[in-house]
């Protein structure tokens, strides 16, 4: 029944104790240390960070990597160019290229040669998914980096200098917001013959920074009126120094969180554009392209539909959780979760105080 079931008494008991715990914990630590500590206490975020790093390592090492003339071999036996024999036999319902992965200990236990199955012409689907995940991750990071960089630079210039510069830059933001991404993506795709994944990512990054710029600007507008900025100015600091050494560190939390949101959104934007045929196009591979290509496989060859979906969701989920962890970690007002142990300690302290 108690929708607002917070017991008032508990709050009062804990109020003093909590603050004591929180204050004690940050005594004598730099901001970086505090943030790191707080972040590592956010269990979901840590799990997400570990998972995402594992996915990245897994995905990157699976296939051959070409850097110029150098070729670093991957640990997976197939590449996306190989066209091995297509598996026809013993697939359910007469499907082709079903996964060889089996957890049934009595028959073919283990990964087999094509754990995720094969596509129409026999290419190894694990290799395709790995290749797609690589592209999707690349797109995600490039968009994050490009949007993040432009957003921070434009936002801070706009917020720091204000006046004319600000209004010009903000109109530029308005301008970019009126140009629908999808139309530009389509137009550029048609004009350039095709949009390679890197080009697509750069371009989405160039369009995707407007929200971040507004946010950074707002932060700068309020921070530059703070006393510590005046103090720095009186001490003779240059504008650049004030902006980067004094204001930016105070806004960094929000910025990082927003960038993680942009990145999680980027992977879905890529998926949506590819679905509509304006993003990554065949024969390039991305996770979004794979699912949209095998959308109709849902009832017949479900593995072609589920695996890319699984990777997209995992990656986006991890990035979101990491963002959440960072938000908590950077928020100075955020109090950590009070565990039972802390509560007990607080009670003991209170008793001791009495």
């Amino acid at each position, binding site marked *: 029944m108690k929708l607002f079931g*917070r017991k008032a008494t508990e709050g009062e008991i804990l109020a003093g104790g909590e603050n004591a715990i929180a204050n004690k914990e940050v005594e004598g630590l730099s901001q970086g240390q505090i943030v790191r500590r707080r972040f590592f206490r956010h269990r979901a975020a840590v799990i997400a960070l570990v998972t995402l790093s594992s996915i990245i390592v897994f995905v990157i090492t699976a296939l051959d990597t070409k850097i110029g003339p150098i070729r670093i071999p991957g640990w997976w036996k197939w590449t996306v160019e190989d066209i091995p024999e297509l598996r026809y036999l013993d697939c359910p319902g007469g499907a082709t290229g079903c996964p060889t992965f089996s957890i049934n200990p009595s028959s073919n236990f283990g990964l087999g040669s094509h754990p995720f199955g094969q596509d129409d012409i026999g290419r190894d689907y694990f290799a395709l998914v790995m290749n797609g995940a690589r592209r999707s991750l690349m797109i995600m990071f490039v968009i994050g980096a490009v949007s993040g960089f432009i957003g921070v630079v434009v936002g801070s210039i706009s917020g720091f200098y204000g006046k004319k510069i600000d209004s010009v830059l903000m109109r530029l933001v*308005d301008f970019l917001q009126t*140009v*629908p991404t999808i139309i530009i993506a*389509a137009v550029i795709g*048609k004009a350039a013959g095709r949009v390679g994944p890197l080009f697509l990512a750069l371009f989405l990054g160039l369009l995707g920074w407007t929200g971040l710029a507004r946010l950074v600007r707002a932060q700068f507008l309020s921070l530059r009126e703070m006393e510590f900025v005046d103090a720095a100015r009186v001490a003779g600091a240059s504008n650049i120094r004030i902006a980067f050494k004094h204001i930016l560190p105070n806004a960094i939390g929000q910025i990082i969180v927003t960038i993680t949101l942009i990145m999680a959104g980027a992977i879905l934007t890529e998926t*949506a554009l590819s679905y509509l045929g304006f993003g990554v196009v065949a024969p390039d591979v991305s996770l*979004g392209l794979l699912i949209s290509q095998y959308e109709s496989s849902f*009832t017949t060859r479900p593995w072609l539909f589920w695996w890319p979906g699984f990777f997209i969701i995992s990656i986006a989920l991890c990035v979101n959780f990491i963002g959440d962890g960072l938000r908590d970690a950077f928020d100075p007002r955020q109090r950590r979760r009070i565990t039972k142990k802390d509560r007990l300690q607080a009670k003991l302290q209170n008793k001791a105080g009495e």
Partner: protein
Amino acid sequence: MLNYILRRIGVSVMILFGSSFLVYNLAAYASDPLAELRLSTDDGARQRIIALTRDLNLDVPPPIRYFMWLKGILGIFVGKFDMGATREASTVQAELAYAIPTTLRLVFAATFTALLIGLALGVISALRQYSRFDYGMTFLAFLLYSLPIFWVAVLLKEFMAIQFNNFLADPNIPIKWMVIMSIVGSVFWSSLFGGERKRFWSVFAGAFATNFVVLWAIDLTDWYLKPGLGPILIGILSGLAAIGITAVSTGLDNKPARNAALSMAGLGVILYYPLQRLFENNGSYLLIIALLLITIGLGYGSSYVFSKIDRGPIARTAILTGVVSGVFIFADRLMQSWTAYRETDAINYRPIPTYGQRNDQLESPDFWIQNLDVITHLILPTLALILISLAGWIRYSRGALLEVLNQDYIRTGRAKGLNERTVITRHAFRNMMLPLSSLFVGEFVGLVGGAVITERVFGWQGMGTLGIKAINGYDLNLLMGVNLLLSILVIFGNLLADLVYSALDPRIRLGK
């Protein structure tokens, strides 16, 4: 203020001009409407190339063609507004006039439902920060945030329409599923109510038993085939709603409010049979609106009956309760038409469609059947949109409320002895709505242009579908029409969001 708005509008017009010029030229240089015809070996291809070049002015360079287009648009000032013709023998205005209401219908339903549910879940989540429920909701929100919408759509169609329709042909719920569903439901409720381990399990047991019994009853009575609530169930539900609404709105110790709400619920039951008579042959939106007004009047009246002072909150509670029980009665009436709807030729026992806005073959003029048709067609796309935007609202409202709860005035409120309900609903909730209100404008505007994929997979002929068609069909006028409308929406959406924010928050002054 007016000065500020005018200046913003002036700048916006300049921006619109620039962006439309850019888009027009990009699109014109990138597209080749004649590509397909050039490959054609048809007898009529030559004539069609001549006609197309003539109709689309392909012999005029795009920058100049842009001004021809602009001339039509600027015609709005002399009453000759012309957005040009599409490539398919229609005008852009006609296409937009068709698409806008379609998109709005879809987006309205979804945005509001997502907002309500998301707000509720987010608020509870914030109030129970770091509880099992909070973690569950955080996870749910992030999961939903990470789903590609067409991926969800395929699943929804398969399970909520095709398989569900199959199920409806012979709706027997296997015991296994009853158990699974009951467990899922009880986990939700017990984590919602939280508390220590003992409390968790007692709620779990209660919820499990109730769930199971309800499912059992549904199965036994073939409720899916002949759904309905009936006066008794409506009475119980309205009574519960009355108590719930009172608890949130005024607190249960407010006796007059409680009595007014309960009496409204009772009134609903008493009026059930007379209303059925009224509904029989006169279903219309006018009637529904009239009934709504009467309900509001009755609710207001009941505050006079039950109290002499402080009638505002009492009236509010009574009206809300009245509306809720009205909704139950309305839902009940719709359910009564369910069998008739399923049995129509057009539906042919498969009531949940996967595609389209309406079933055109539905010949029944019956108000309730027509409305059921609208509702069944809205279910899947709305659900897809809700799933996608729910996540945002859960996170936003949770974050906003947590932010507010950390403020000094909340501490002050508690310190001066206000009860928790008052602190939350009066002080915290109102302040939390500030940032959300401007977000709402943005979200809504975003969805109008952003429901592209949902419209496409569910076959709604809205703005998104139109945009895609324009791009794929090299239909420049249509593309510009869609683009112009969306740009205007974005620009004025931003302006509106700023205005709303400054109107709600006295600390913000625009134009500085």
